[in-house]
C-alpha cells in the first residue's frame, strides 16, 4: 500500500507541544487566579482541589460516567442506524425524500432536549430508555440529513460515467452514492458523539436513576459541593472526547482515502 509515510518524532513534537503547553498554562493560570483573587470555592474551585476530589470520589463518578455513557452510546447507535436506513430509503424512493426532508430539517432545528420530561413520563423516570430515546432522536436528524446529502450530492459526471457502463441503480447506489456519502456521514457521526453526551446528561437533569452522572452533578451542585460537580464534569468531558476519538478511528479505517484524513496524516 502506498500509505503516506509516518510523521517523524520531531514533527509529532512540533505538532503537539503547543497544545500541551497551552493546556498546562491554562490550568496554572486558573489555579493562580483563584488563589490570588481569593475566589470562593463554591464559585470556582481550584484545579488542584478538583483533582483531589476526583481521586476521592473516583469510585462514584467513574461508574456514574459509565452509566451515562451507556445511555449516550446506546441512543447514538439507535439514532445513527435509523438515520442511515431512512436516508437509504430516500435514495431509493425520491418520494420519501421530498416528503420527509422539510420535516426533518424543521425538527432538527427544534430543541429536542425539551422532550426529556415527556420521555421520562413515557418510559419511566429511571428507565435508561427514556434518556436513550432523547439521544437517539437528537442524533438521528443530523445523521439522516447529512447522509441524504451525501447520497444526492454526487458529481454529475460520476453518474454519467456509471450510465455509460450501463450500471443498474443498485450498483450506482452501492459503488458511487454510498462511498460518496461516507464523509458526510462521518462528519454527522462526530457531531453526534458530542450531542449524545450532552443529551444524556442534560436529560438526566430532569430526573433519573441515582447511578447517573447528570443526577450526581445536579445533586452535588444543589448541595454546594462544586468540586464534586466539577470532578463529574471532568468525567463527562473525558468520556465525550474518548467517544469522539473512537468514531474518528473508525472513520480513518473506513475511508483512509479521504482528504480530511490525509491532511492530518500529511502535515
Amino acid at each position, binding site marked *: 500500500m502506498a500509505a503516506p509515510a509516518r510523521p517523524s518524532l520531531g514533527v509529532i513534537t512540533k505538532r503537539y507541544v503547543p497544545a500541551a503547553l497551552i493546556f498546562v498554562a491554562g490550568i496554572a493560570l486558573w489555579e493562580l487566579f483563584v488563589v490570588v483573587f481569593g475566589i470562593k470555592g463554591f464559585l470556582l474551585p481550584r484545579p488542584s482541589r478538583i483533582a483531589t476530589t476526583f481521586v476521592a470520589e473516583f469510585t462514584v463518578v467513574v461508574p456514574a460516567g459509565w452509566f451515562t455513557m451507556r445511555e449516550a452510546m446506546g441512543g447514538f447507535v439507535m439514532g445513527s442506524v435509523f438515520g442511515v436506513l431512512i436516508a437509504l430509503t430516500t435514495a431509493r424512493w425520491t418520494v420519501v425524500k421530498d416528503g420527509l426532508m422539510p420535516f426533518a430539517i424543521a425538527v432538527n432545528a427544534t430543541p429536542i432536549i425539551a422532550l426529556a420530561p415527556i420521555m421520562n413520563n413515557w418510559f419511566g423516570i429511571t428507565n435508561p430508555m427514556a434518556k436513550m430515546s432523547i439521544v437517539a432522536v437528537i442524533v438521528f436528524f443530523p445523521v439522516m440529513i447529512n447522509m441524504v446529502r451525501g447520497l444526492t450530492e454526487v458529481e454529475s459526471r*460520476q453518474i454519467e*460515467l456509471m450510465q455509460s*457502463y*450501463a450500471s443498474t441503480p443498485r450498483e450506482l447506489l452501492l459503488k458511487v452514492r454510498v*462511498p460518496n456519502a461516507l464523509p458526510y456521514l462521518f462528519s454527522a457521526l462526530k457531531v453526534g458523539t458530542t450531542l449524545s453526551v450532552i443529551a444524556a446528561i442534560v436529560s438526566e437533569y430532569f430526573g433519573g436513576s441515582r447511578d447517573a452522572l447528570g443526577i450526581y452533578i445536579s445533586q452535588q451542585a444543589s448541595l454546594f459541593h462544586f468540586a464534586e460537580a466539577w470532578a463529574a464534569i471532568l468525567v463527562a468531558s473525558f468520556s465525550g472526547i474518548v467517544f469522539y476519538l473512537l468514531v474518528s478511528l473508525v472513520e480513518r479505517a473506513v475511508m483512509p*482515502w479521504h482528504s480530511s484524513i490525509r491532511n492530518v496524516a500529511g502535515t
Partner: protein
Amino acid sequence: MSPAPAVAIEGVSKVFNEGTTGQVEALGEIDLVVQPGEFISLIGPSGCGKSTLLRLIGNLLDPSKGQVTVAGKPANQARLDREYGMVFQQATLYEWRSVTRNVQLPLEIMGRDKSEREQRADTMLELVRLTEFKHHFPWQLSGGMQQRVAIARALSFEPSILLMDEPFGALDEMTRERMQAEVLDIWSKTGTTVVFVTHSIPEAVFLSTRVVVMSPRPGKIADVIEIDLPQPRSEDTREADRFYEKLTEVREALRGVETP
C-alpha cells in the same frame, strides 16, 4: 457489404427545457457519419453544442428529433451493450478507489471475475505507463496521470468507440502535447473510433482524421475538414508545412462561424 458506420447521426436536433421560458435550442439539424477507426474532432466556439452532440452520441442525452445510430444499433442499445468509453475534462476518478480499482470499475459492473479484471487493468495501466502507480489513490497523482487513468478505465472493456470531452483542457501545454501523442499511440494500437471535443485548433489538427467545425445558436455543422497528414503522426508532424496549412484552414472555417 461494408461494415456499419461507427456513428450515424441523422437529422438530430436538441432543445433543452422545451416548452418553457428557459427553452434553449442547443443543436439544430445535425447529420454526420463516422467510419470505424476514424479520429473525429468537434471544434467550435462555446455554446456551439459540441459537448451536447457528444452526449447524444453517448446516449447520456436523448435527441429531441432525429436518430443516433452507433455500430449499427440505436444509441440506447449501444450504451447497454457497453460500446462507449467516456473521458471528461476532469478525470472523474472515484477517490475511494485505488488506480487499479478505478480501471476495473466498468469490468466489475460487467460482472467479469476478479482475476480477469486485474489482468485487464494491468494491461491497460501498462498501456498508459502507470504500472508502478496501480495501488496509489487518485489524490496522489498529478493531473496528467489522473487523466491517463481515466483513459485506461475508458478503454478497459474495449469499447468500440471512445468519446472524449476536452480531455486535456485542464492540463498544461507540455503535458497536453505528451498526452496527445499518447492518445494517438493508443488509437493506432487499439483501432478504436474516437470522437474528441476540443477548443484547440492545433490539437484538433494534430489528432484527427477529420475536423468537424461547428457554429453556435443553434449548434450546426459549418464545415468538415479532411486532415490528410501522414500517419503515424509524430512531433515532426507539428512542424510540417502541411500541418500549418491545415491549421489555417480550420482557423478560417472557425472565423466564418463567429457570431457578430
